[in-house]
Every structure is written in C-alpha cells, then in structure tokens.
C-alpha cells in the first residue's frame, strides 16, 4: 500500500503515528500541517486531573452484564487484563480506563453504525475501571467482531477494543486501540499500519492461559506503557524544593 505520510508527529516518531496518513482518509483534512511547537512540561502538564471517580463501580468492568437488562451478552467471553505503567515500569495506580468496542458480530450500538450486523440487546460495548495499587486493570467482555467501514473498497477493521487512559499526569493522556493476534485484517488496516512498524506489535494483546478461567472465559494480557514523566516526578521535585 503506497500512501503519503506526514512528518508531523507528537512525541517519538518511532512510536507514535504521524497525524497525516493518507491511506486513512479522515486524516486528510484534520491533520495539522504546521509543526507542533515544542514546549517544556510545567506544573500544568505534570499534575493529575482531578476526577470524580466515585461513579466508577465494579459492575462497570463487566461488559457482558452491564447493559442493565439482566441478560448476558452473546459471544466468546474474554478477560482482558494488564498493567498500566510508565517507561520505568512504575505502576500507574488510580488511572481511569474507559473502553468501548463492537459486539461479537462487529456492530456498535452507536447511531451512526448502520451496517446490517445484528445488535445484541444485552451488550452496550462500554466499560470502565480504575487501576489498582499495582497499576492493574481487568475487564470481562466478549471478543469483538470485525466490521466494515467506508474508508476504501471492501474495508474492514480488525477486531479491536478502544482504550482511553486518564492519569497519572496530563502529559501522559493516551487513547489507543488493542488488537488480537493472528487476525488476517491487521496487515490491511490503515489505522494500525499508521503506527511505525517496530511499534505495531505493542497494540496486540497476548493470549494468557494463566488468565483463562476453566469453563468460563479466555484470558488476554495487554500492558500499557505511558510516555514521559508521571505526576510522581513532579511531586518528588516539589518535595525536594520544599
């Protein structure tokens, strides 16, 4: 696939996709064309957004049952778990993870997803949780299906789960997608392929038999490593200055 790739990247160009990636058509009119302005990190970026996390419940992390219908979602039940940490392996406790995904048939409940894949009345495809003291998260869900989109002729997105990560510092804000290995659509997907080749595998979960629960659900492990210094670096500096 030949595509025009922009030069404007936020952060490490060996890790992050460029804003302009012509094969993903929505980037054409939305990617900035002027260079990003490099600025140092200040207290504004190294602090943790104050969140109202009291609203996050245990039930929010179970996408197979959180539709409020009393019924269970259809599909292959899976556990997705991992650690959120910084580049030094320090855990990110109390991070808010929000996830959204298509159902087992590849259909989103979103009003603009109108392809004729079946909806599942027992599946909203949304969940959230907070990481524990070790930075660990855990979702129970169903394996999402692939779905068609209008980017190019016969375009299908590989199965994926969207992840939003908030904390521990504003500069570490991350929204990304998790994929499954051995999916034949991975090599055809312009959104995944916009990521530099050496970093693509980081978005693919690993099957984890130790996470799999007998007669219940298959386990997948996927760790998230946040770029740059966390709030702890700022707090340590403030304390040393005090």
């Amino acid at each position, binding site marked *: 696939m030949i595509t025009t790739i922009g030069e404007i990247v936020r952060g490490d160009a060996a890790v992050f996709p460029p804003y302009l990636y012509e094969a993903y058509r929505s980037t054409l009119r939305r990617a900035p064309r*002027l260079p990003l*302005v490099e600025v140092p990190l*200040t207290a504004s970026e190294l602090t943790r957004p104050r969140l109202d996390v009291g609203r996050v419940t245990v039930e929010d992390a179970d996408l197979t049952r959180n539709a409020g219908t009393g019924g269970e979602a259809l599909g292959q039940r899976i556990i997705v778990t991992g650690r959120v940490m910084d580049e030094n392996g320090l855990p990110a406790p109390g991070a808010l993870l929000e996830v959204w995904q298509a159902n087992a048939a590849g259909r989103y409940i*979103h009003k603009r997803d109108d392809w004729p894949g079946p909806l599942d009345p027992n599946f909203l495809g949304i969940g959230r949780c907070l990481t524990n003291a070790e930075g660990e998260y855990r979702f129970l869900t169903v394996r999402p299906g692939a779905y068609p989109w209008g980017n190019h002729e016969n375009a299908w997105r590989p199965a994926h789960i969207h992840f*939003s990560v908030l904390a521990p510092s*504003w500069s570490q804000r991350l*929204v990304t997608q998790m994929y499954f290995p051995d999916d034949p659509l991975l090599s055809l997907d312009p959104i995944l392929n916009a990521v530099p080749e050496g970093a693509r595998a*980081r978005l693919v979960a690993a099957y984890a038999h130790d996470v799999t629960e007998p007669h219940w659900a298959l386990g997948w492990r996927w*760790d998230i490593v946040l770029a740059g210094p966390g709030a702890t670096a700022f707090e340590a500096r403030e304390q040393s200055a005090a």
Partner: protein
Amino acid sequence: MSALPVTPSQTVGPFFHDCLLRADARCDTIVGDSGDAQIRVEGRVLDGDGAAVPDAVIEVWHAAGFARVGTDEDGRFSLTTVRPERAPYDRSTMQAPHLSVAVFARGLMNHLFTRIYFEDEPSTATDPILRHVPEARRATLVAKAGPDGSLTRRYRFDIVLQGEGETVFFDFTSPVR
C-alpha cells in the same frame, strides 16, 4: 532500569460517544472549591476546509478540575469553569492563567494538546510558554473576551485543526528545570 516500549496512540474513531460522553463521563462545568468567578468558553472545531468537525471531544484541565465535552453538528462546544489561577513555571516565574486542552476526533491519529489563554488577562503578554510560540501564531491560543456586564464572562476560542489560522498544538519535551 531500561525504558519500556511506549504504547502508541490511535484515533478515537467515530463511535466513542456512548463511552466517553455518557451522561456521567461528560462534564461541561468545573466548579472548583470557591464556586464563583465563572467564565464560559465557547467555540467551534474546524477542519482544513473550514468545515465543522461534529465528532470531536474536547478535554480541559486546570487545577480546579477536569471537563470533557463533545462538539455538535456545527462543530460547537462550550464549557463553564471557575477562572484558572496562575500556575508556577519555574521557581521564580509564574505562567499566565490558562486552560490545558486535549482535542480528540476521528481522523486524529494522536490527540492534540493546546492551551486557552485569555486576552483580557495582562500576564498573557509575558507568559513563558507563549514565548516559545512564533509571534504570528500566538493569537490562536488566546480566547477573545465577549461583552462585559454579566456575571459569567464569555470567551470565544475556535480550534482550527488545519490550514489558515491553524491553532498552535504542542509537543511536550522535558520538565522545566
């Protein structure tokens, strides 16, 4: 300790609304502790054709709290907050009051970081971060004040993703020494 491989970013895509903007995940008001000195920031998100971006998410953060709003069919967003305080830059310098902003949308492979400053705030002219921005582009980071007179001061701040009047977006380097 050797650095671990950083997780790359991906677009939010078109189907985030039910998750990121569900009733108890969106927030268009930052109350803060004092609760007074409310300001309202309104604007539009526009693409390289000047067309509305109807599927963007704007997150705003300052010391008083966090807000997250979506854009409507006309690309419009608005939020209300207590006026931000000045935050330190280094041990001897303060920053001008500002809101830290992240922009997400279908077609944005990474979110975009920017800031909202205020034109009627004198310290905006000497802000140490704005000094890193080419002078001709600084105005894209400064919200225009609406007519005075009401309790809630209104500001206008458009976010132009591409092309003429393109908003300044940041790439953060290392912490201020």
